[in-house]
């Protein structure tokens, strides 16, 4: 026990001196969090609308002024040609052309009324449709004002979203999960394949040191590193991005460490299987990359094609991210996420079996 502890301290000290390992276990995760956290991908944003006011009369100015009062719209004045070019480059969401004959006056039946033309950016349908309905609403209100009639039906719209979920709130648990995975798989697989190839493990096995003590020191070193990583990420999330993990910090840490144990077993299996350090990145990427995209790190796991979803829903990182997200966003307890924890447990058993099969001290 004392031996395992001292060995862990020695290896942890060496780990802290390893600049590459520190870069990948702390700097890269922080970069991921800062970059994706500030992207604010999930927010709807504003609708950018260019107006070409060809009438430029009192009526059109009144109409444009009404539009400018609406927060959701970001309005620029531009000529139709210039704005169309911008639309094609997707720098704009919409273009509104106000015709020369624009007036706000009661229309007699049969009289032709001025026609507003809207050009929409087809690649941003959500923004375009919101913009259209806003313009429609403004036109309708101006019509009521002119016709001196009131709307016959009133519409009351209420938001039903309970917790206001920002992208960064969604992102943080995913970032925790993916970085724990990367740390556990890569740090073990790389370090131990190199040690195996260079004969370090063989030299250690020529001493009476028990393999179990050596393995314990390697595992504990990584778990300490994972703890440091998770706490730093959560600190940045809380203090910089104002994220409030509803289920508390401790359950998040515990579930992250459970995930780390699972991915460590895979790291050991990989280190045992690989002959050289050149094989490690290929296989490690093969294992981690699909989970990077299909396990709900940066966007919902439902973004995966429906055909493969039965598989992607069972990936180890999917269980980890789902558990972390339910704790962080919905305030779930450990008991609430027991199904995901069971999934992690099954994977841990599989990983452990693989590690025992491939990581053989008598072969070094």
């Amino acid at each position, binding site marked *: 026990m004392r031996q395992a502890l001292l060995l862990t301290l*020695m290896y942890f000290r060496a*780990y802290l001196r390893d600049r590459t390992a520190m870069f990948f276990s702390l700097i890269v995760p922080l970069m991921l969090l800062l970059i994706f956290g500030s992207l604010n991908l999930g927010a709807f944003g504003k609708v950018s609308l260019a107006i070409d006011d060809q009438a430029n009369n009192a009526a059109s100015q009144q109409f444009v002024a009404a539009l400018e009062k609406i927060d959701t719209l970001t309005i620029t004045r531009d000529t139709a040609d210039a704005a169309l070019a911008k639309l094609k480059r997707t720098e704009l969401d919409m273009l509104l052309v106000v015709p020369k004959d624009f007036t706000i006056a009661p229309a007699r039946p049969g009289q032709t009324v001025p026609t507003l033309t809207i050009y929409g950016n087809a690649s941003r349908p959500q923004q375009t449709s919101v913009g259209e309905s806003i313009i429609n609403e403004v036109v309708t209100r101006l019509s009521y004002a002119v016709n001196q009639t009131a709307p016959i039906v009133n519409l009351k719209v209420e938001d039903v979203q309970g917790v206001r979920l920002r992208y960064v709130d969604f992102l943080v648990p995913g970032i925790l999960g993916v970085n724990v995975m990367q740390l556990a798989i890569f740090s073990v697989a790389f370090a131990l394949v190199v040690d195996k190839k260079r*004969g370090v493990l063989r*030299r250690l096995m020529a001493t009476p040191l028990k393999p179990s003590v050596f393995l314990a020191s390697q595992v504990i070193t990584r778990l300490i590193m994972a703890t440091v990583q998770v706490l730093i990420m959560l600190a940045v999330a809380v203090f910089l991005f104002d994220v409030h993990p509803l289920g508390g910090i401790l359950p998040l840490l515990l579930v992250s460490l459970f995930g780390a144990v699972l991915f460590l077993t895979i790291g050991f299996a990989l280190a045992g299987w690989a002959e050289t350090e050149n094989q490690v990145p290929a296989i490690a990427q093969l294992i981690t990359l699909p989970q990077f995209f299909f396990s709900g790190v940066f966007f919902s796991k439902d973004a995966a094609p429906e055909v493969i979803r039965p598989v992607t829903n069972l990936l180890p990182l999917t269980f980890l991210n789902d558990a972390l997200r339910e704790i962080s966003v919905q305030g779930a307890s450990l008991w609430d996420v027991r199904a995901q924890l069971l999934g992690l447990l099954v994977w841990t058993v599989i990983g452990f079996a693989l590690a025992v099969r491939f990581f053989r001290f*008598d072969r070094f």
Partner: protein
Amino acid sequence: MTPIVTVRDLRKRYGDIEAVRGISFEVLQGEVFGLLGPNGAGKTTTVEILEGLRKLDGGEAIVDGIDVTREPQKAKERVGVQLQQSAFPENFTAKETVELFALCYGVEVDAMALLKQVDLADRAGQKQEKLSGGQRQRLSIATALVNRPRVLFLDEPTTGLDPQARRNLWELVREIRGAGTTVFLTTHYMDEAEVLCDRVAVMDHGQIIAMDPPRTLITALLGRGFTKPVIQQQANLEDVFLDLTGHELRED
């Protein structure tokens, strides 16, 4: 003198290849014993069985009274090991490397004293991966001495070293032997065996084909009428090299 290593009818095969074909020998307490032979003769396999790193297929291997097959852990506690291709964990200093191995044996050591013994005291705080080839071999010997071994196994200790570093290592081996430790080394440098070893065994194709003190083997060869057409030289190129460059170790 009593034998400290006893090998009887030792056999080891890898698939179809019989690497060691029933060899027997004894190493006496306090001697430097050399196992010689060309590459692939079975030297390293034999040594690694004695170190407890490989399982034997047949025969018996006893080190300091312990059967290495039955009690490999106990045997490991009694011997010091320098492997042919071995390295140490990165980001450990020389001193920490010695401490790491002491911890592996569960013993307390004066790491600085050991480093001083192998002439590395001034490199104690340097990362081991930054040491030169000769320095690393000496560090390797320091780590092999942490448990005060009864037998020190050195597998090709001077391969890849320059003449100065080789001589320096020979000196170290003599000192270790002088302190009462039995040394078992393998080499394919005959000059090394001749100056260092009290007795040598010559191995080829998995078998021991000769075993005696180097002088006895040479005398026997001459007795069989062997002559070689040499011009009597009072010096060779290595003497010239060492005269020109000095005996001091070259290490940055």
